[in-house]
């Protein structure tokens, strides 16, 4: 902080995994801060390497937006979860009915998982979220993010039965282990329509996932005193967890992985989670089924902004500006993207009412590159006219281009390249020289150390012409970089989106794939 308070606009601060290496001379328009977290030589990126090198004080866990100064509380995740639950609801809808009276069962009331009850309410279903840590449950309940807390599983079952019957829109926290909920509901024949899980399975051995049958305190003790035994308990619980989810799935539950490495860790624990081909999992990750094809491939992702004045009036004004831009875009949009724009228009119109601000005057919505640029340009104009104060742009890392993560953001990349991280690295470098005020790149964050490369940026808009030119160049690259990669991987939506962008933008030229016939190749190989 001291460095930041001293630096001029011709210096750059370099942050090495939380350590301020120092201020170096640079130039106007260059990033003021460059952040890296957890960068390792790839062979030294196993969980125990993190334990060791973090304990020595030479590296730190990447995080997603918190590590790049762009965390805005759970609003972003409420938005993302709402969209996911709504679309999952569309998937299980048999006759076009909505989610009324349907039950969503999941776990976790922590940093991000705590958004689930609220998203359940916005989507209009009955939700049960299990949480083992009473402090986390208390926090969310006192903040009004979850309606009711029940700590006895029999009582929970009775309450849920009534809520389903009366088609209540209600969110219930169960204070205890999620496995107990799944098992009891199976015994009592309570139909779970949607199921997921948001324990911190990216960190299974050090407090991310609690074994069933042990109290919260017992688990914490075991974890420190007998880590080997603790690991066994976690693995046993995972096997049991999957077993009971499988049974519910046979009764018709749509279960999806919500990006917490549930599928990955339970397969590692030896649970019955692999599909018949022995390669894929039994259940989809929500990116493969929903977010990837419906959002990221088309360039839609979590754009966000913060009103730096801290004034709620500014936030209201930016909501209006963004709403007007989306509405105009929706009127002219091709059908492929109109639904996206309309969903987000509805969101932004009710955003203030849903009271999601927990500190910063921040807002999120999903937009594509054209939408992000139009909205940002309109903000800059409003700043220039003195209608609002400065605005800080950013995004979640859970986006089109910023993150290479084979089981999450890039899980719907099927050309074999999902285990590479060139896209994320190009993204941070490209954003850096196109005018971001700061950039970051992390190993870890979300799904775990060694499992992901993810990067972000922040950009201050001050109403100047320089801001106009930077926002245009940087936002354009920050979205189209990923669409280009997704289209090269032959993803249909991305091919559509990048061709459309090339028509609009003469300086963009992207290498397009020729689509080889798979059958031709197979036949050839079979003959040989």
């Amino acid at each position, binding site marked *: 902080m001291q460095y930041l308070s001293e630096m001029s606009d011709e210096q750059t601060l370099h942050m090495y995994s939380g350590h301020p290496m120092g201020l170096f001379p640079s130039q106007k328009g260059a990033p003021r*801060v460059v952040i890296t977290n957890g960068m390792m030589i790839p062979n030294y990126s196993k969980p125990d390497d993190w*334990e060791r090198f973090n304990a020595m004080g030479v590296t730190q866990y990447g995080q997603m937006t918190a590590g790049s100064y*762009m965390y805005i509380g759970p609003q972003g995740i409420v938005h993302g979860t709402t969209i996911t639950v709504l679309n999952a609801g569309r998937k299980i809808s048999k006759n076009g009915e909505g989610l009324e009276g349907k039950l969503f069962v999941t776990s976790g009331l922590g*940093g991000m998982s705590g958004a689930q009850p609220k998203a359940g309410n916005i989507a209009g279903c009955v939700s049960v979220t299990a949480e083992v840590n009473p402090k986390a449950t208390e926090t969310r309940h006192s903040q009004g993010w979850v309606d009711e807390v029940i700590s006895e599983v029999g009582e929970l079952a009775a309450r849920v039965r009534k809520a389903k019957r009366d088609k209540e829109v209600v969110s219930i926290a169960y204070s205890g282990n999620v496995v107990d909920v799944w098992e009891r509901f199976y015994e009592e024949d309570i139909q779970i329509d949607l199921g997921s899980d948001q324990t911190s399975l990216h960190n299974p051995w050090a407090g991310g996932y609690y074994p069933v049958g042990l109290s919260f305190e017992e688990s914490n003790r075991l974890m420190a005193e007998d880590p080997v035994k603790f690991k066994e308990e976690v693995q046993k619980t995972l096997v049991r967890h999957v077993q009971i989810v499988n049974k519910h799935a046979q009764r018709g539950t749509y279960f999806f992985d919500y990006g917490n490495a549930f599928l990955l860790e339970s397969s590692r624990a030896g649970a019955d989670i692999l599909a018949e081909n022995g390669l894929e999992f039994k259940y989809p990750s929500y990116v493969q089924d929903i977010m990837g094809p419906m959002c990221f491939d088309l360039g839609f992702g979590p754009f966000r902004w913060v009103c730096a004045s801290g004034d709620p009036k500014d936030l209201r004004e930016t909501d209006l500006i963004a709403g007007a831009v989306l509405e105009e875009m929706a009127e002219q949009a091709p059908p492929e993207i109109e639904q996206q724009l309309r969903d987000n228009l509805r969101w932004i119109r009710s955003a203030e009412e849903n009271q999601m601000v927990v500190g910063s005057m921040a807002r999120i919505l999903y937009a594509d590159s054209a939408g992000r640029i139009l909205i940002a340009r309109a903000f800059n104009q409003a700043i220039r006219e003195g209608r609002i104060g400065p605005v*800080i742009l*950013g995004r979640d890392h859970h986006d089109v281009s910023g993150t290479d993560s084979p089981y999450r953001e890039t899980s719907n990349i099927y050309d074999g390249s999902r285990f590479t991280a060139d896209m994320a690295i190009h993204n941070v470098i490209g954003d850096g020289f196109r005018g971001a005020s700061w950039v970051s790149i992390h190993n870890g964050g979300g799904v775990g150390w060694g499992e992901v490369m993810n990067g972000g940026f922040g950009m201050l808009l001050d109403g100047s012409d320089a801001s106009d030119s930077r926002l245009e160049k940087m936002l354009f690259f920050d979205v189209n970089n990923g669409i280009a990669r997704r289209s090269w991987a032959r993803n249909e939506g991305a091919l559509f989106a990048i061709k459309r962008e090339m028509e609009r933008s003469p300086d963009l030229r992207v290498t397009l794939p020729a689509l080889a016939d798979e059958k031709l190749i197979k036949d050839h190989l079979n003959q040989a």
Partner: protein
Amino acid sequence: MNEFQKAIRAGIPAELPPKKEIDERINHAPRRKEILTEDEKVLALRNALRYFPEPLHKELLPEFAGELARYGRIYMHRYRPDYPMHARPIADYPARCSEAAAIMLRQRSSLSELGAVPADHAVSLRNER
């Protein structure tokens, strides 16, 4: 300049700040497993002490060594900032350029908005500077 601005400008204080009790009401990260060898523990402590002038080392050492033994990490609790962590208007941040002020605003509020996660342990003091 108010207390907050002074604290930011001062960076790591030249004199030893008073010792801090750990606030048990704030949700804390669980204890980490023991992973360092004896030599690596020496290294961890030398690394932590790099941030502080040599004359303070005698007093800081037992504290840091205690944290390492108790939590498996050196959190430098004594240096936790006293000012409340929340988003302030950009004009409150003492800075020479507006981008740096925006970054300070985002850095501080990202931490405070972490909510139910163990914010007290989320980032070590090394970020404070």
